[in-house]
């Protein structure tokens, strides 16, 4: 007598078996952690509140981007607090954060989560912790340079720089939209700048001497 084959078995018999998964070692030795990292980030993000996180997950649930993140905001806080510096600074999460402040206004412990994200972004950018041509740090950098020099940003020029520095192909795709905007009078290539450029630069340079963030 033949025993009926359960459907699941038949299906897998028909397909080729899945490839063997490679074994990945995942354990954390305390010596690999930077225990004071959390406290330093907390200081950067205004006060010790980061440490008072109760891991409730409200931030992750309210964050509109958490489902694209490699670590949810809650996990970022947990890892920051416990000193998982490399993981945090290498995460995609900090680049996906759109600074919408949803998490921050809802956090039951009033943790400045968005400011934590900023602090982590700054650190990652300062120490080159992001893939080359990653558009977000590149955008931030280009924007920074432009405003530093001119006092104002020219959106069109900023985008062109961004695409040139990251993926010129995107520019082709965006050119069509650009043309439409230009036709509607919503795109200007005129370089914006302010009269008090020199003084502004003096101010910004004064900061260099004033407060420079130590690497975390």
């Amino acid at each position: 007598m033949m025993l009926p084959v359960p459907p699941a078995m038949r299906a897998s018999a028909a397909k080729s078996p899945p490839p063997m998964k490679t074994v990945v070692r995942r354990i954390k030795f305390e010596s690999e952690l930077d225990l004071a990292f959390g406290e330093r980030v907390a200081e950067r993000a205004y006060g010790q509140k980061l440490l008072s996180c109760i891991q409730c997950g409200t931030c992750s649930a309210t964050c509109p981007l958490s489902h694209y993140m490699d670590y949810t905001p809650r996990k970022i806080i947990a890892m920051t607090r416990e000193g998982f510096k490399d993981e945090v600074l290498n995460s995609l999460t900090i680049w996906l954060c759109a600074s919408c402040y949803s998490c921050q206004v809802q956090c039951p412990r009033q943790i400045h989560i968005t400011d934590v994200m900023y602090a982590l972004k700054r650190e990652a950018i300062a120490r080159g912790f992001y893939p080359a041509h990653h558009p977000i740090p590149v955008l931030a950098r280009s924007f920074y340079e432009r405003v530093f020099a001119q006092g104002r940003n020219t959106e069109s020029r900023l985008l062109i720089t961004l695409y040139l520095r990251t993926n010129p192909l995107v520019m082709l795709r965006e050119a069509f939209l650009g043309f439409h905007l230009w036709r509607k009078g919503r795109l200007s290539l005129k370089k914006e700048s302010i009269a008090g450029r020199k003084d502004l630069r003096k101010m910004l340079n004064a900061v260099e001497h004033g407060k420079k963030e130590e690497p975390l």
Partner: protein
Amino acid sequence: MPDTDSSHPLRIGFYICHCGHNIAGTIDVASVAHYAAALPHVSVAREYKYMCSDPGQELIQKDIRDLELNRIVVASCSPLLHEHTFRQAVEKGGLNPFFFQMVNIREDVSWVNDNPAAATVKAKDLARAAIFRVSHHRALDKKHVSIHPDALVVGAGIAGIHAALTLANAGKKVTLVEREPTIGGHMAMFDKTFPTLDCAACILTPKMSAVRNHPNIRLLSYSEVKVVGGYVGNYKVTIRRKPRYIKEELCVGCMECIEACVYKEGKTPDEFNQGLSKRKPIYIPFPQATPQVVVIDPATCIEFKSGHCKKTCVSVCDRGAVDFSQKEETIDIDVGTIILATGYATFDPKRLPYYGYGKYPNVYSSLEVERLVNASGPTAGELILRDGRHPKTVGIIHCVGSRDRNTNRWCSRTCCMYSLKLAHLLKEHTEAEVYNFYIDIRAAGKSYEEFYDKLLEENIHFVRGRVAEVTDWAARPSEEGKLVIRVEDTLIGVVRRVPVDMVVLAVGMEPSADAQDVRRMFNISCSTEGFFLERHPKLAPVDTFTDGIFIAGACQGPKDIPDSVAQAGAAAAQALTLIDTGEVELEPNTAYIAEEFCSGCKSCLGICPYTAITRDEIKGKAFINEALCKGCGTCVAACPSGAIRQHLFEDDQIFSEIDGILADDNLTTAGVER
């Protein structure tokens, strides 16, 4: 009165309660009422939404008056809940309260039956049985016993101390019995208390000396209750006083004898310091011990072992307080009420060998750490490990022997909070990196969450996960010489190895080793886990099933100091209520001797669990002390001559009830014939 005259025809009133949906949701109450109305002698049968409400009770009273009822049956909830209510209503209506029978159709029928038709049939059967039975009820007199105004409190931890002081301040004489040489219980061992971090000694010692000095409190330390007899209001208690070999009334606690002892150094592990230091054979548990009287431990004293000691202690004491001839004493007292406050024991962490307690010297139990951080502890509050080092990293493991089906299933309720407290103190004393390994943080008391919040901001690590092992296996050079904690950080999703210098095991709270003996001696019950059982978990949390005996503090279940004190106050209030009422009403369901049938065979004497039966030597017959009789019925069944009977359980009553149950729906009047 109609009820006392048996020539009057029987007129029974039957009432069935809906109890909201509790009963009426399952049982067709209208049909039961209709059915009962047709039973013999039933004059009226009604249904009502809530019989226990005032209108419900008034219904009965009005019917008694208007319809000249002389027997009442109520089908509703458990007699435990409302028998008293309905008896009172019947009495107010002008009938003897015992012309009443209650049928439990809620716990016994509707709550346990999901078939409405079958439930309705069962309700009818039970109603019929009660109606048959109630016809045979007789008028009975209520009985009262007086309450002795003195009280006994057993156990002088914070709960016992508070209960004793409350009673004494209300003017009652209290005997406070404590097993150890000093009062104070566990609280006396702590340095600080959560969540306010006030010093334990500062808040406890004033209460301890208040006990000592209170004119209404007789403190019997180093003593234990041996025998308990009697009944509510009239307990007879025998207490054994262990010899201290010191005359308590002479000793002033100057401790010069300890200094003078021939032992230059202590050799015996100090119990109060959890064995973290050594004491001499003559010692005092701690400087503020109450009473401030030293003790001699005969097991280690040379004089007791060999009889050849120089007895320097005797010569140094100019008050002549040392007395090697002291003997054990027994003291008998009479009290009306008893409060048990015998506290708890901590879980023995050796039962979980994977945490290395007893194997690695730097693994500590939380109670040991309480002593270690205590300014008056073995190291004067300096954190020196057993191997002499100062810890730079400390791991506190929560839920050791709690929330674990392999050991104790319950949550010990205090460990989260005292772990937070210890984390704070350890950080404060050592500036070490402190980790808490927890399953959940349970900080539900007033100001507790705020305390947790504060701790979080002190940069103490909180790793969510139950630790699997503590080992000295170093997988990396950085782990060399350390205790390595292996845990899943469930919040981050990675297994971690955390090397530390010191491990603190947050041991749970469990029943004291002798809880079962104490329970038997005082004739109360324990819940499955072994803590003393309260009469009702919500509505009678400090009462027990034995009248006049109350429980307070951690002997009833794990709890912290605020809850222990609150319970102690409640227990004292309950005792005071009894004392100030002066007497209690007894259930009349006691056994009695029909003397004309008693042959004086004595078979009943030994079998009464409450020793209520004695023999009247003059008459040569058995005699039952009604105050002692609990109505268990053992003797009634045992008497070979059928001379012992029991009120409310007379043969005719029981047989008619059985007839009622067995009668089929085509009724006969057999059961109700008189």
